[in-house]
C-alpha cells in the first residue's frame, strides 16, 4: 500500500474535526423531535462518520489495493442479509 501518499496532517486533523462535529450533531439531533426519522437520522450520521473513517483514516480511497473495498462491502452486505432475512420473520409474525 505504500503507493498511497498519506495526506497532510492538516487534512487528517480536518477529518478528525468533522467527525467530532458530526458527533455533536448526532447528540443535538437526538433531542429534536423528528417523529419516526430520529433513528434514521442517527444511523445516517453514524454511517457518514464510518464512511469518513473508512475512506480517509483507513486509506481505502486512493489505495493501490482494489480488493479492500470489495472485501469490506461484502462484510456489510452479508450483515445486511442477516438483518433483512431475520426481519422477514420478525416483522411478519403478527400477520394473521
Amino acid at each position, binding site marked *: 500500500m505504500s503507493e498511497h501518499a498519506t495526506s497532510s496532517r492538516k487534512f487528517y486533523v480536518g477529518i478528525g474535526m468533522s467527525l*467530532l462535529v458530526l458527533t455533536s450533531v448526532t447528540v443535538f439531533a437526538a433531542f429534536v423531535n423528528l417523529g419516526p426519522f430520529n433513528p434514521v437520522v442517527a444511523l445516517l450520521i453514524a454511517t457518514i462518520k464510518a464512511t469518513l473513517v473508512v475512506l480517509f*483514516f483507513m486509506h481505502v480511497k486512493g489505495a493501490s489495493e482494489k480488493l479492500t473495498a470489495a472485501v469490506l462491502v461484502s462484510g456489510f452486505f452479508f450483515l445486511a442479509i442477516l438483518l433483512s432475512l431475520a426481519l422477514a420473520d420478525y416483522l411478519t409474525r403478527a400477520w394473521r
Partner: protein
Amino acid sequence: MADSHATTLEPEAHNPALLHHFADAQQQKNAASLGMWLFLVTEIMFFGGMFCAYLVYRLAHFNAFAAASQQLSIKLGAFNTAVLLVSSLTVVLAVKAAEAGNRKQLVTYLVITVLLGLTFLVVKGFEYAEKFERHHVPGPTFSFTDTFDDGSQKIPVNPNEAQLYFSLYFAMTGMHALHMIIGCGLFTVLAVFAWKGHYSPGYFTPIENAGLYWHLVDIIWIYLFPLLYLISRHR
C-alpha cells in the same frame, strides 16, 4: 486479535526481510493487508450477531428500550465517542509518522493513542459502576422502575424488557471494551518495538494493520453510541 499480533511477528522482528515464501515485498505487504481486511470482516460479522439481536428486540420492546436507554448518561457517552475519534486521528498520524520514518513522532502518537484508549476504558468503568449501584445489572438483583414518556403520558415499562436492554448493553459494550483492551495492549507492544527502531519507511505493516483494527473498533462504537444512548431522547 491474535491474528494481527501474529501478523506483526510475521517478518522477523529485527530483520525486516522478506519471508521466504513471498516473491517480493509488495506481495507480502498486499497479502498482509488483505488478510487484515478479511479479519476486520469477521469482526463485523461477530458484532453483527449482537446488532441483529438489538434490532429485533428494539422493535419488539421499544418502550422499555427507550426508557432504559434514557438512564444512560449522554455526557459520558458523547465524551467517550470524542475520545475514540481523537484516538483514531492519532493512529492515522502515527501511521503517517511511520511512513515518514519519524521514530519520535511515531512513538509519541502511539502512546497518546494508548492513553486515549485507557481514558475510554476508565470512563466506561465509571458507567458500569453506576449500573451496579442502581441495580441495572441483569440478574437476580435487577430492578427498574422508570417509565416511558411518549409525549402525552408516562407508560410504565416491563422491568423484564428493560433487563433485556441492559443485557444487550452489557454484551455489546463489554465485547467492545474487550476489543479496546486488546487494542491498547497491541499498541503498547508496537510502541516498544517502534522505540527500539524496528520500523522503517520501507516496513511498517504492523503499525498499519493495528491501525486498521483500531479504526474498526472505532467504527463499531460510532454505531453503538446512537443505538444505545440516543433512543427516543426527544421526549
